[in-house]
C-alpha cells in the first residue's frame, strides 16, 4: 500500500461549492471543514439535496470547490488543472459506483486493468495485476467473462477490484450496495470491512443507517454542511 506522508490523508478547509442558477447563487456546499485520517472508514450520510454527492465529487477530484482548500495527502488539489485532476484520480483514488460503471464490451479482467492503461503500465503487467486483484475479491474464475454474464454482486466485486488495482490512497464508494440484494450487500460490505482491517482509507456514501453502521466514523451532511460527526455503532437518523 502507498505510504502516506501527511498527518491527515484528507484535509478540507472552508470548502464551498456555489452554483449559479439564473441570477441566484445556490450553495451546494456552504463551508465544509473535515479531516480524515489514514485507515479511517468514513460513511457520508444525508438526505438527497444535502450536498453529499457534491462533497463526494470534490473528494474524488471529479470536481473543484469554488473556494476553500483541499489537501490530499498534503498536496493542494483544489486548483489543479483538468489533466492533473485526471492524474490524481488515476493514482490516488479508487472509485466504486452504485451502478458499477463497467464497460460492457470488454472482459472483467480488462475492466479491472483500465486504470493501469491510463497509468501507462505494460500489457503483461496489467494482465498479471488485474488477475491477482480479481482473485483477492474471489473472482479468479470469472476474469474472462463480460459484465453482462455476471451477477450484480459479482459486477460490484469487479468494480472494487478495479478501484484497488492501482493501489490508491483512498477508496471512494458511492452507494455501492444501492442496486444489490441483501445477500450481495452483505458480501460487498464484508469486502469493505476486510479492506478497512488491512488499513485502507475508505469513504462511503450511503443513506442506509445499517450500512453506515459498518463504518468507523459517520458523517451527516445537511444543507451543505457536516452537522454530525459520530463514531462507530452510534445510530444516526438521516432524516
Amino acid at each position, binding site marked *: 500500500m502507498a505510504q502516506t506522508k501527511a498527518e491527515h490523508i484528507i484535509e478540507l478547509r472552508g470548502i464551498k461549492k456555489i452554483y449559479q442558477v439564473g441570477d441566484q447563487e445556490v450553495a451546494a456546499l456552504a463551508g465544509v471543514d473535515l479531516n480524515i485520517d489514514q485507515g479511517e472508514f468514513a460513511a457520508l450520510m444525508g438526505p438527497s439535496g444535502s450536498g453529499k454527492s457534491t462533497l463526494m465529487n470534490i473528494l474524488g477530484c471529479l470536481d473543484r470547490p469554488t473556494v476553500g482548500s483541499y489537501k490530499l495527502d498534503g498536496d493542494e488539489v483544489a486548483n489543479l488543472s483538468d489533466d492533473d485532476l485526471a492524474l490524481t484520480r488515476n493514482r490516488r483514488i479508487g472509485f466504486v459506483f452504485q451502478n458499477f460503471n463497467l464497460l460492457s464490451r470488454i472482459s472483467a479482467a480488462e475492466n479491472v486493468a483500465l*486504470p493501469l492503461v491510463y497509468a501507462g503500465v*505494460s500489457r503483461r503487467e496489467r494482465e498479471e495485476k488485474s488477475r491477482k486483484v480479481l482473485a483477492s475479491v474471489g473472482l479468479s474464475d470469472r476474469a474472462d467473462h463480460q459484465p453482462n454474464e455476471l451477477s450484480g454482486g459479482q459486477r460490484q466485486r469487479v468494480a472494487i477490484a478495479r478501484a484497488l488495482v492501482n493501489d490508491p490512497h483512498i477508496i471512494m464508494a458511492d452507494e455501492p450496495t444501492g442496486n444489490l440484494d441483501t445477500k450481495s450487500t452483505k458480501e460487498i460490505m464484508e469486502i469493505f470491512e476486510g479492506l478497512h482491517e488491512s488499513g485502507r482509507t475508505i469513504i462511503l456514501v450511503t443513506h442506509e443507517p445499517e450500512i453506515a453502521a459498518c463504518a468507523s466514523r459517520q458523517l451527516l451532511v445537511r444543507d451543505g454542511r457536516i452537522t454530525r460527526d459520530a463514531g462507530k455503532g452510534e445510530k444516526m437518523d438521516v432524516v
Partner: protein
Amino acid sequence: MGMFYESVSIALKALLSNKMRSILTMLGIIIGVGAVIAMVSVGMGVTQNVTNSIASLGSNMLIIRPGASMSGGLRGSAGSRTTLKYADAIAIKKKVKDIDYVSPTASSSYQVVYGNQNWNTEVQGVTPEFMAIRDLTVGAGSFITENELATRERVAVIGTTVSTNLFGEENPVGKVIRINNQPFRVIGVLESKGQSSVGQDQDDVVIIPLTTAMDRLLGINYVRMINVQVSSQDKMDAVQADIESLLRQRHHLIGKKENDFQVQNLTSLMTTLNETTTMLTLFLGSIAAISLLVGGIGIMNIMMVSVTERTREIGIRKALGATFKNIMTQFLIESVVIGVIGGLIGIAFGVGVAFAISKFGSFNTVITAAPILLSFTFSVGIGLFFGIYPARKAALLDPIEALRYE
C-alpha cells in the same frame, strides 16, 4: 508511444464491436476514393489517346499544304492550289535552320495488280527522308534511294497489307507489279505498323519515288504536302516563321497578299488538345472528390452519434484517469482508421473499376500512382479533419455529467 498504441487498440476494438456501422461509414470513403481513381484514369486515358494519335504523325512536325485555289472570285477547297513545288521543299531544307528532315509527298489512289490479283490502295510518292520522318522500317529489301529519286525509277516499297493481298505467302521483293498499267519493281516490304489510333490501316500503302509519281504516274508538277521535322520543340515557332517568309518570297507574295499555302504546327495542336483533356481529367476528378467530401461528412456524423452513445463510457474512462489527450486520441484514431481502411479498399475498388472499363469498354484507362496517393492522403486527411470536432467534444465532456448520462 505506449499510450498511443493503447489508443489504437481501444479504437480498433470499438470499430470491430460495431462492424455494420463501421463498414457503412467506410462506404462513403470507399466510393469517394474509388470514384476519384476511376474517373481520373478515364480522363488520363482520353489524354493518352489524343497524344498517341498526334504522336503517331511524328513529333515536332510542321505540315505545309497548298492553300485554296482562286479563280474569278471562286475559292476552291484547301490544298487545291498547285503552287507548292518540289523545289520549295529543297529550298526549305537548304535555307531554313534547325530542321532534321523535309519530306514532300504526292499521292493518289490506284489499282495495283500482280498476276491475277489486284488491290486498290494509296500510292505515295516520297523522298528517302520519308522513312525517317514516319519512323518506318523495311522488313525485307530496301527503301527508296536518292539515286532512284533522281532517275525517276519505277520501283516500289509496299506495306504488309498490300503484300498479303497481292502475293500471299510469296516473297514480293524483286517481283514486278503494275500500277496504272505501268510496271514497278518491288524493292522492299515495310515492317507492319498496325492500325493508327484513329483506326486507319497504316500497312495498306505503296511507296514510290516522288519524281516517278509526279512525272510518270500523276503527271503533275507540284506536291500535295511537305512534312518538316524540326530539330527541337522550342524551335518550332521560329522555323514556322522562317518557312512562311521563305515561301512567300519564293511564291512572289508581296505586302498584304494572302499566303497560297498553310503551315500547321502539330505541337501547338497537341498542346491545345492536352490542355482540354487535362481540364476534362480535373473536372471528372473534382466531381469524384465531392463524393469523397460527402463521405467525410458521413464520418463526422457517425462519430458524433458514437460520442453521444458512449458518453457514459467516456465518463468512466475519465473517472479512472483518462486525460483530455487520451480521449481525444482514442476518438481521432477511430475516425482516421475509418479513413485509412476505407481509403485502401477504395483504391482496390477504383483500380478494379478502371480495369473493368478498359477491358469491357472500348476505352483505355491509365492508372498512375499520383491519383492513388493523392486520394488516399485525402481520405486519411478527411478522417482526421472530420474526426477532430467529435473527438474534441468527447474529450471536453465533464466527467460528472458524463457519468450521470443514461
